[in-house]
């Protein structure tokens, strides 16, 4: 029963979404299924939040390594929750000025807005900025000319890197004959991105699309139940 009911729900929801894609009459069914998912996801947020707090409280109570960070995590979690739920710093909506909590929760200048703008945005930007260093280390490893394929990759990447910058234009400025202009790195970059790169990407995309259909059919037909913990 524990496995059968979720399986039936998955199959029915899958077929509803499939039919809704082709039959205009059933368009609303797909939207309803999506709304049900959103309701479930909101309910699950409580589950996730509860799990987060439980794990960190256990860490604090057991004074495990790094328990101080757990205090910071729980403090931030509860603080943000209070600022968001009670709309601290949010002015009442102009239409309902007498209703205290009628304003938009992310109103400019509000507490939650401040947390978002001055804490979450800089922190996520910092994490994103680290990508630059990781790209450098990954490129250093990937572009080592160990064999023919790696050498080809190195040369292609070099052309594209230069072609994407002004150096690609500057290197060939003034001396390359008109008939050889296609050899300029900026022109070669356009060709590499438009022809071989697009061809490769499309090949992968077609494979992915077929894989998605096959996996969906396996799930819809109940052949693949491993996501429920069954083989």
């Amino acid at each position, binding site marked *: 029963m524990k496995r059968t009911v979720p399986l039936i729900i998955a199959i029915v929801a899958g077929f509803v979404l499939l039919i809704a894609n082709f039959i205009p009459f059933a368009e609303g069914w797909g939207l309803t299924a999506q709304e049900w998912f959103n309701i479930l*996801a909101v309910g699950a947020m409580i589950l996730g939040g509860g799990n987060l707090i439980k794990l960190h409280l256990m860490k604090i109570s057991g004074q495990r390594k790094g328990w101080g960070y757990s205090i910071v995590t729980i403090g931030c979690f509860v603080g943000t929750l209070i600022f968001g739920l009670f709309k601290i710093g949010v002015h009442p909506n102009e239409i309902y000025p007498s209703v205290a909590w009628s304003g938009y929760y992310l109103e400019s200048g509000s507490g939650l807005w401040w947390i978002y703008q001055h804490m979450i945005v800089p922190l996520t930007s910092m994490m994103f900025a680290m990508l630059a260093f990781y790209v450098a280390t990954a490129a250093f490893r990937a572009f080592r000319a160990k064999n023919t394929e790696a050498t080809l990759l190195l040369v292609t990447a070099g052309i594209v890197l230069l072609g994407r910058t002004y150096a690609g234009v500057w290197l060939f400025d003034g001396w390359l004959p008109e008939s050889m202009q296609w050899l300029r790195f900026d022109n070669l970059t356009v060709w590499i991105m438009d022809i071989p790169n697009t061809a490769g990407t499309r090949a992968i995309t077609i494979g992915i699309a077929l894989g998605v259909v096959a996996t969906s059919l396996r799930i819809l037909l109940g052949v693949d139940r491993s996501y429920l913990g069954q083989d």
Partner: protein
Amino acid sequence: MRIRTSFLPVFALLAFASLAGAQSPEPPTDVVISDTPNDAGQSVEVYWALSETDIFNPLNTNVKETDPEMIVATYSIERKVANTHGADVSDEDSNWRKVSEAGAGESHWTDRSVHMGWSYDYRVCSVDNQGDASTWCDAHASVTPTMQAFNMAKAWLAIFMLVFGLFIAYFINHARTGKKLWVRKIAGLEAIDEAVGRATEMGRPVLFVLGIQDINEIQTLAGLTVLSRVARTAAEYGAQIEVPTCRSLVMAAARETVEAAYLSAGAPDAYQPDRIHYLTDEQFAFVAGVTGYMVREEPAACIYMGGFYAESLILAETGNHIGAIQVAGTAMPSQLPFFVASCDYTLIGEEFFAASAYLSGDPLQIGSLKGQDYGKFLSVLILLIGIFFATTVSLTETDESAGFGAGALNYIKYNMLGSEGLGSFGSGETDIEGDDS
């Protein structure tokens, strides 16, 4: 008092002169209304030809000479119910009422506030910046939104899916008869046992990341199927598995999957639900949490299976720096190069979706893989036909819109791969130059 009244005729004259001088913009023309095709009868399309004093009108060649007071700012669209076929209608709806406004240069609007089966009249006028409106341009006939039984724009998609589904159903049935189907080895999946074994030997955990998408995404489901296998191997070997998740529902599903895997491996007591935990929905906060764990605990094996975005490289490079054996699988083409550069094994696109069938060894599932291969064969065939016609057209015909080849090419592009539906042969668009569809 007498002096003031003597000015009244002068004021009246000036007012009349100003009214006479107020120039209204030229009206739009050719208002055409039609039922939106392939919908549930809940919208109507309204088209009009731009006013002559609309500076965005391509036919208005003397933009600089257009009287500034006549330049169109917006188009006002009004509607009234012509016939409700017996249903009650409010007074407001039975008279002309403004339903929308479109900006200058716009010549189309979709009315999504109509009732199926009712008939409507529409009219459009142009309005300048002074608020002066042109005369109305009425649509020639009423329109009645109706529901179509099938979305014909997706007819070819339905045909492809049906054919593809038949291939899969046939090979699943074929596998049922007991015939062995050969599937090539996928190195990335073969390496999973090796990775878990290594983690067991080193006494370190196995990290499994299911991506950052929710449970309603097919990539997350595909990732869960691999997790099932990894968890069972970990349970058999006695290794610990850590699954941080970015979505609460994924955490709940992953717990079920891992618990069932431990149960089927005969080690239910070794299952630790707290090791499958929720971190945050925020993309980079999740990355910070996972990479922090990786640096602190140094898992011996890191497995990434699911939908990833910019975080893919941060995760894979951190895993690389701690010396973990890494296996990744995703259907995000833009993230594949990062995984290829940083991981030991990468499941590229379709390999990732084949993982479930491959790992299960179930003949029925492997049969579906065979069906997938035949679908691929069909796609390649259509590609080759398209390439043949495209080459023929570019080599032989000066006018790319004429001839059998161009017709066939357009049909493939706009009907089979586009949204023109079944249509008629050669009825598609003919602008081949520069098209990237």
